[in-house]
């Protein structure tokens, strides 16, 4: 079984190479890696709770890249939430769509990877990080490059909007590279819309360089169809005195695996990771986060919270690595879960590796049910049971939403969450 998965799925991908002839070295690195390692086998430690390869074998029938779906201005319009004011970068099954995108702000530059050929491509997300990075190297056709020049502030958010629709279980490959230069500032939003209920496999890599003294925020919503298999490798290099904040919200999907890595490369920098997974049905969400403290005086803060209903499954694995040089590190990690059903499962594991001796690190995780005492207290004041549950669950979840500093997006996510908590749960 192990070898079948390893070779069969990999071979299927190898048969379907992209048409774009650029990125020769990147593709070679990916190919070399996959030829010797394959995709994660069943016993692979990093993927033991999230059997992506097996899911692919079961659900993906055609390993070709999905052809563009038919999109329209109306569809894009429908995906824009109230109060949004900013640029929109539209992707159709992973490929940039110029005609539907709105790129109007002056303070950053946008281009295709094949045009810009940025040198740092592939240097932040490396093939050794994860086999799916190698696969992405091999399979993406073209991607986008967004760079914010030194000292500039991009005033309005940049909204990366993906539309996915892959017939007969096809593959969507996306590649994004973001380069935020010294003392610059920018906020990204990301959302993926499934156009139907068919299976697809989306394998995305986002690389972000946050240069000295710059500030970047990345707010991401994953609310895809119940068949979607998604692997996302998101890797950031954070340089001296720079801050990067990620807020990731997962509401729906088939099997979602997020590998979020923050490399804290110098002193004075800060990496923040916030996450909320609100799962029902059979949705399976796995958040693997990884913070690498390499130099003294850097901070990381992490808070992931989950509410799991029905037979949904959550995995949280939080790695904090503090190297010998990284004295005076502050690293905080918290993972809290509420299970609403006996069939819901959460696997949570902090993984701390600390080689410096003068550091402040703390981590904690809790898993429990809804607080019945609190529920009764609210009911005893005349609040209906359903609404009381909703209030308590939102109180739990809201702590994560507070970290979305772009108000209209916070409101949009809050509305989706409250709808869910008020009705289904």
């Amino acid at each position, binding site marked *: 079984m192990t070898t079948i998965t390893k070779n069969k799925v990999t071979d299927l991908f190898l048969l379907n190479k992209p048409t774009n002839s650029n990125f020769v070295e990147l593709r070679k690195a990916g190919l070399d890696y996959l030829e010797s390692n394959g995709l994660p086998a069943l016993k692979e430690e990093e993927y033991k709770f999230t059997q992506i390869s097996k899911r692919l074998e079961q659900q993906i029938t055609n390993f070709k890249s999905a052809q563009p779906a038919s999109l329209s201005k109306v569809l894009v319009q429908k995906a824009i939430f109230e109060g949004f004011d900013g640029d929109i970068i539209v992707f159709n099954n992973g490929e940039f769509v110029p005609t539907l995108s709105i790129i109007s702000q002056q303070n950053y530059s946008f281009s295709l990877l094949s045009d810009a050929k940025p040198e740092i491509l592939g240097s932040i997300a490396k093939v050794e990080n994860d086999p799916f990075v190698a696969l992405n190297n091999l399979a993406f056709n073209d991607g986008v490059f967004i760079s914010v020049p030194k000292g500039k502030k991009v005033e309005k958010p940049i909204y990366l909007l993906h539309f996915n629709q892959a017939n007969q279980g096809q593959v969507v490959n996306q590649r994004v590279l973001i380069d935020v230069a010294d003392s610059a500032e920018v906020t990204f939003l990301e959302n993926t819309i499934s156009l139907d209920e068919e299976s697809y496999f989306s394998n995305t890599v986002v690389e972000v360089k946050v240069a000295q003294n710059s500030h970047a925020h990345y707010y991401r919503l994953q609310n895809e169809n119940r068949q979607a298999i998604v692997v996302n490798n998101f890797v950031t290099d954070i340089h001296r005195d720079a801050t990067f904040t990620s807020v990731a919200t997962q509401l729906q999907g088939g099997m979602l695996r997020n590998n979020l890595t923050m490399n804290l490369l110098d002193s004075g920098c800060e990496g923040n990771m916030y996450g909320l997974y609100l799962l029902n049905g059979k949705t399976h969400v796995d958040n693997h986060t990884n913070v690498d403290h390499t130099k003294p005086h850097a901070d990381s803060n992490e808070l992931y919270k989950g509410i799991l209903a029905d037979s949904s499954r959550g995995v949280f694995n939080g790695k904090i690595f503090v190297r010998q040089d990284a004295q005076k590190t502050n690293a905080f990690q918290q993972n809290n879960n509420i299970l609403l059903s006996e069939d819901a499962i959460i696997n949570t594991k902090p993984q701390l590796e600390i080689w410096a001796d003068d550091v402040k690190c703390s981590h904690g995780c809790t898993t429990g049910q809804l607080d019945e005492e609190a529920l009764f207290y609210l009911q005893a*004041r005349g*609040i209906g049971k359903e609404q009381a549950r909703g209030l*308590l669950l939102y*109180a739990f979840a809201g702590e994560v939403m507070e970290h979305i500093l772009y108000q209209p997006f916070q409101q949009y996510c809050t509305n989706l969450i409250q709808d869910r908590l008020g009705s289904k749960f």
Partner: protein
Amino acid sequence: MLSIKNLHASIEGTPILRGINLEVKPGEVHAIMGPNGSGKSTLASVLAGREEYEVTDGEVTFLGKDLLDLAPEDRAREGVFLAFQYPVEIPGVSSTNFLRTAVNQVREYRGLESLDAVKFLTIMKEKMKLVEIDQKLLSRSLNEGFSGGEKKRNEIFQMAMLEPKLAILDETDSGLDIDALRVVSNGVNKLKSPDNATIVVTHYQRLLDYIVPDYVHVLYKGRIVKSGTKELALELEEKGYDWIKEEVDAAV
């Protein structure tokens, strides 16, 4: 208004209430006293509808309705209010939002229009004065980090906002200093009317100097074993419960 007949209740199979009988009429104040663990909070919780308790026998009617048949929220909407012995801290739920939701759901049930933000705030300010509660407390999460006394005061404030017909105060006086006790009792007294009734559960006669009861009942081993007037409370204060325990245990 409230009629309890032969009420039996147990938790996890252990009987706690073993045949409670009590009649409460509008305008009356009843005090329930008794040693620790005798079942006072259990009685209060069963009346408010806490689900962990199983009613195994007996009946309770409230204003002609079968109280035991109603969900906890509907009991509150009908006018039953329980001031908790141990109010729950609820992080992330703002006191003001919570109260507005509660008040409006109660009003809706009673066929009244819901209060808009301005009207709600006006009423809130007025009731805050009544129990001398600080605005700062209400801008925090519900009961979170409140001192014992602040929690008790907040219970009475919620009571003032919800205007119940039957208030059950479970040891609202415990742990309060004299000044706080006076404020809380004043609040309760101001809310009293010929149409509503109060049940005060307490260990201390002291409270009954402020909230003067019409009847005093002693609960022991899940039964009301003695009833009397406010003089009974003075006697208990002086002599303790041992003589009553002896009387009861001898009769068994």
